[in-house]
């Protein structure tokens, strides 16, 4: 595991911290998480990895939906085994969710509010404010079944922070959203993260780049990287090249190097790829982005050069 020096910013808040020590998770014979060690402080925390890397498993363990097989986890000082206490201070938005289709937006919030133990007054004062925050106040009388994918996601966030949890766990929240909605959704999460820990899992690098300061990269159940986005990018500095090549040369280049992006320009192609040193004359070194850095990180896992 590559570990960058941890920035303390955002973790100073006393007891707003998630500590995961030597977490191993098994599904029968299969090991979904391998010796995961993480400390997560206040602010946005991104969990990046391919589909099936173990992100959802980790989030479910934190949300008390799965019992941990081995290791220690505490959320704001409370061991994860105390499910009732953990539940009252965490909010969770699963990857796939919906609500009773015949309920209105307000009713669904009210119902979940009762399940969170909120009094009538608390629900009355909090729900309209939250719906405004997620831009659903005007739709409060709409039935859940009439909501679009993006609206449903926003309602999902509102329900997850209804009881003002210290920790918000969001699993792949931008999947299926259009680009505009995705940006709005990220901004919303950033706003929410000002007061609490927000853990966001995604396989979309762009989501993390725009919002998270601290990230962890999971691969086949193992933490491959834990640190800041800037440090991850720094790791790939000087290893990213750009060149304009002919289409014919493209397949040759792809065999040798990892191409992180390309742009067709008539008969030529502008490629961006990873290399340890200058590969050929016409290639020039460019500044690394998170996506490049992620690909660079994953390269080692693929057993490539």
């Amino acid at each position, binding site marked *: 595991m590559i570990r960058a020096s941890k920035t303390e910013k955002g973790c100073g808040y006393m007891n707003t911290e998630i500590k995961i020590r030597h977490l191993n998770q098994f599904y029968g014979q299969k090991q979904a998480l391998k010796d995961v060690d993480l400390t997560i402080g206040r602010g946005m925390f991104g969990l990046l990895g391919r589909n099936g890397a173990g992100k959802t498993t980790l989030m479910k363990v934190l949300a008390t939906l799965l019992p941990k097989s081995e290791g220690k986890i505490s959320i704001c000082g409370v061991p994860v085994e105390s499910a*009732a206490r953990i539940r009252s201070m965490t909010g969770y938005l699963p990857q796939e*969710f919906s609500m009773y289709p015949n309920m209105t937006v307000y009713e669904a919030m009210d119902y979940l509010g009762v399940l969170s133990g909120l009094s009538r007054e608390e629900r009355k004062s909090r729900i309209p404010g939250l719906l405004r925050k997620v831009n659903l106040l005007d739709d409060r009388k709409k039935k859940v079944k009439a909501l679009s994918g993006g609206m449903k996601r926003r309602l999902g966030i509102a329900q997850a922070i209804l*009881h003002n949890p210290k920790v918000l766990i969001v699993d792949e929240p931008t999947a299926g959203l259009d680009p505009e909605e995705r940006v709005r959704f990220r901004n919303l999460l950033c706003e929410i993260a000002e007061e609490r820990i927000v853990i966001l899992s995604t396989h979309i690098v762009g989501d993390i780049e725009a919002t998270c300061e601290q990230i962890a990269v999971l691969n086949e159940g193992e933490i491959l990287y834990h640190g800041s986005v800037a440090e991850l990018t720094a790791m790939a500095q000087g290893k990213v090249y750009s060149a304009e090549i002919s289409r014919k040369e493209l397949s040759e280049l792809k065999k040798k190097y990892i191409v992180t992006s390309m742009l067709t320009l008539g008969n030529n192609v502008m490629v961006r790829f990873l290399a340890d040193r200058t590969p050929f004359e016409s290639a020039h070194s460019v500044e690394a982005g998170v996506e490049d850095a992620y690909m660079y990180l994953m390269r080692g896992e693929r057993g490539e050069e």
Partner: protein
Amino acid sequence: MMFWTLFAKECRQTVRSLIYWLTVIILSLFFFSQLGDIEITGKPVKGQEDYGVKYSDDEQIIMENTLGRLAEEYCRETYSTYPIGFHKSVKPDKDENRRIGDILEETAGIRDRKVIEDLMAEHYNKGGVIMTGMAVRPVKGLSYEHFQKLMQEVDDILGGGSSYAKDMLKSNAMVAMTYEDAMEEYDTLIEKDWLTGGYARLFCDYMGIMLAILPVFLAVTRGLRDRRAKMQELIAVRKASAAAIIVSRYLAMVVMIMVPVLVLSCFPLAESIRYASEAGISMDYLAFAKYSFGWLLPSVMTAAAVGLVLTVLTDTALGVLVQGIWWFISIFSSMSGMGGGMYGWNFVPRHNTVGNYSGFHNNFAQLAANRTLYAVISVALVAATIWIYAKKRRGKMDIHGKISANRKSKYKA
């Protein structure tokens, strides 16, 4: 506080569900078709054409009527049986017929078909309304015990479910009531049953059939709604305890089903009030409510609990199948005791008459034990549901996941 708010919300959800209104409609249709035209039978008047029929307890009459029936069926060589509630004609082979003939001769002293045909002609050509079957006198000195034993042998030959089985013998002894009999029944109804008791039992008899199955549909759809709406995880991670979630749902189901039951009971109650005021007799206004809670509530509780526990356990509609089978078996196995008084431990105790107060009164302890048993069973099932739900929301018991995972792996293979 949280519990009652949840309960109110569950009731609201129930009222808005299609399955609830289907339940109410089926219950109402059943009520109006079976009991809608209920009329209070007035005081018998001397010289009435008939006073109805009753089952006799007299061993001599039981023997006579049973033997009359046996002689008739022996003569036709075809026997009616109801092995699982449905009619089945049984034609025994030569040897079996000969043995039945032996038994008939031993008990009634006849076996010649010609003689039996004459007896039948005599009985059925009397003119007037023939309410009861033919009676044949048993031979002198035949003890009731020996008679029972031989009849059971006939039942065994026929494969069971015939009118000759030990607990069915009484149902052969249907006799016409005399004015005195009718008067006695009426007096019992007014004095001991306060008029409404008898009608409340009849109400419970019919409604009990439907309430032993309908609540399971409500429970299963409620349980499956979370999964269908993809809301299981949103609920699982909330602070509310498993007990608060499950019990509020269960209680809402039971209460919402009892409401239409009590509303429907107002029809025979109104009819009783009308009759009582006309006849100037006092009546028990609360009988329908008392009987509904004592008799019907345990059925509703059990059917709902079976649905709830199996849905939470398996995330499937298995509850409907299980309750359906149990209901079917219960209905048919309690048919022999339809007249009331033979409640046993059957899930659907029957009492398909306004009369037979003595049957009810003498077996009240059995009925009370029966109903208590089912109430206790349903409470135990709800407790089990809470336990299962608490485990499942922590991911410690994923039966549905395992089923679908198996399916997937088989599919791949």
